[in-house]
């Protein structure tokens, strides 16, 4: 009995020490992202997992822990756990909302971890070591630029926006600024909540309200799919074209195949999380400096370059 206990204690002790030794050798990187509650976030989750597999396979000393949250407060708890339980050396975080997450990320920073912030910034400067983001302003501007290239003064467009957030406002304001002075009329804009059903319904209403629409800016590819159905139902698919945004695989496939209704897309890739993870790992493996801001482009996706942005296995 006593011997058995002793043996077990010994075994356990050995396990613990080896465990601790391993933990010391490995660099732990926590990745905290929103759960897959809509298409883009689903793509984000997929790309994070793919990057985890790839990075752990190529770097034996890197251990990546991905956690997903349903809301800002959930994410704050996740960050606490990453620090206290996992004792991470670096954090890659895509904050649900900038305000509420600023303090929790600051706490992680205080533990000595290297901080990479993705997409939505924090409200206080100087917390993050690396900032990786898509370019919302550019997304709006490029979309407007394409509209200008295809339309003439006096043509009419409608806009389906996302949900009322800073991201949406940035895109919208940049679009409006670029379109100004071109003579293109923006008939109206409504929120379609980055959602297919709402995209369908809002577009149906636009179609019955405006007999003459030459183009639609749908701002997001989930909305685009709803818009496409509404336009087809009304039989007006020959009268107009739609510009989406984000880089959903179905849309990109359509662009590749020369779809006339949705001829182009503007990139806002969920794969940016992989970029952020790469940069963070580089902090521990590269001999060059990695601190700074990495802002991805928002290129126009056309039939010529669509293949570069096509991920058939991604859920988004």
């Amino acid at each position, binding site marked *: 009995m006593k011997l058995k206990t002793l043996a077990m204690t010994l075994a356990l002790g050995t396990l613990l020490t080896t465990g601790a030794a391993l933990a010391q050798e490995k660099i732990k990187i926590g990745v905290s992202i929103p759960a897959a509650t809509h298409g883009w976030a689903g793509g984000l*989750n997929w790309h994070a997992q793919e990057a985890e597999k790839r990075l752990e396979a190529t770097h034996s000393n890197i251990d990546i822990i991905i956690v997903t949250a349903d809301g800002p407060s959930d994410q704050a708890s996740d960050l606490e756990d990453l620090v206290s339980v996992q004792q991470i050396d670096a954090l890659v975080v895509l904050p649900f909302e900038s305000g509420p997450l600023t303090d929790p990320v600051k706490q992680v920073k205080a533990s000595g971890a290297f901080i990479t912030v993705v997409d939505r910034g924090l409200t206080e400067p100087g917390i993050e070591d690396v900032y990786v983001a898509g370019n919302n302003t550019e997304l709006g501007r490029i979309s407007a630029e394409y509209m200008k290239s295809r339309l003439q003064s006096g043509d009419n467009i409608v806009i389906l926006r996302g949900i009322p957030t800073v991201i949406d406002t940035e895109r919208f304001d940049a679009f409006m600024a670029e379109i100004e002075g071109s003579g293109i009329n923006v008939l109206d804009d409504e929120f379609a909540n980055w959602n297919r059903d709402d995209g369908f319904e809002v577009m149906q209403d636009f179609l*019955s309200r405006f007999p003459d629409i030459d183009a639609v800016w749908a701002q997001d590819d989930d909305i685009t799919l709803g818009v496409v159905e509404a336009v087809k139902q009304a039989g007006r698919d020959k009268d107009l074209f739609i510009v989406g945004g984000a880089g959903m695989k179905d849309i990109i496939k359509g662009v590749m195949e020369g779809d006339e209704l949705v001829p182009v897309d503007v990139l806002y890739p969920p794969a940016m999380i992989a970029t952020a993870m790469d940069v963070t790992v580089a902090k521990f493996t590269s001999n060059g400096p990695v601190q700074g801001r990495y802002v991805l482009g928002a290129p126009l996706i056309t039939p010529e370059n669509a293949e570069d942005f096509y991920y058939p296995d991604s*859920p988004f």
Partner: protein
Amino acid sequence: MSDLARETSQMKPAGKPRIDLKTAGPLIALIILVIIGYSLNPLFLSEGNISNLLTRSAFIGIIAVGATFVITAGGIDLSVGSMAAFIAGMMIIIMNAAADTFGVSLTTVLIGAGCSVILGIGAGFINGFMTTKGKIEAFIVTLGTMGIYRSLVTYFANGGTLSLQSPVRDIYRPVYYDSVLGVPIPVLVFVLVAIAGWVLMNRTAFGRYCMAIGSNEAVARYSAIKVDRIKTITYVLQGLCVSLATIIYVPRLGSASSATGVLWELEAIAAVIIGGTMLKGGFGRVGGTVIGALILTAIANILNLTDIISNYLNGTVQGVIIIVAVYLQRANISARRKPKT
């Protein structure tokens, strides 16, 4: 808003002496809304818009008819939105798989629809069984299943979107987009479900039992009503309604994702309450529920047809109209009581 208030005060005295105001309340609210809609944009009453509006209200309407029974019997079902997303997702998976065996044919679509009905009834039964036999509050049971279905659809879609194979979709598509004698099919289904619901509620023993259980469960039990069975059946009916709504929903966009059916449960409950059914149970109006669903869809439609109100305030307008619509009925009820006492 002042328009609404003015209209209301004009309508009330006119209708008061003759018609049952409790029944008329929601209808008056809808008529006022139609007048507002038309005055803001005459296109509101165009044939195309009315057809869109009715077709759209079919989903929430059909689900809300089921919810009327659950709420009348003193229960609540918070899982309907997630259930719809889950069933839609399963239908798509099943039809995609069936297409490999049975080819792109009507059989494939029928298999999908059949599975939808089975899943709906099964899911409803689980809610009902846990509530009655498991003695867990309906609020808690359905809160639990709400989370379960929502995460299951996210899991099956791998966080993205489940899409129906496009050849199958071409066969299935008319179910949403076609019409019979000028009536869109979803509207037709909605009308049939509403008629069936009305008969069940007002002309059968089952409807009376629901009301009896909702107003006093203990008394109903002593009156030899099989309370557990009746309550379970209300959840099964709810599940069946969700599956019917899903069958006409899937061909619209041919896809399901974790964003499908979000907050439908609240819209369904709102439609039921606007229609004059009491949230605490004991009194149910299927006709009112239909009007409630139309009111909800009309509000969103009107807001899309006008640009007078800031986009940011859409939710406020909807909230105010819902509260006013229910207040109209309350005011009518108390107005009717006063002369008697």
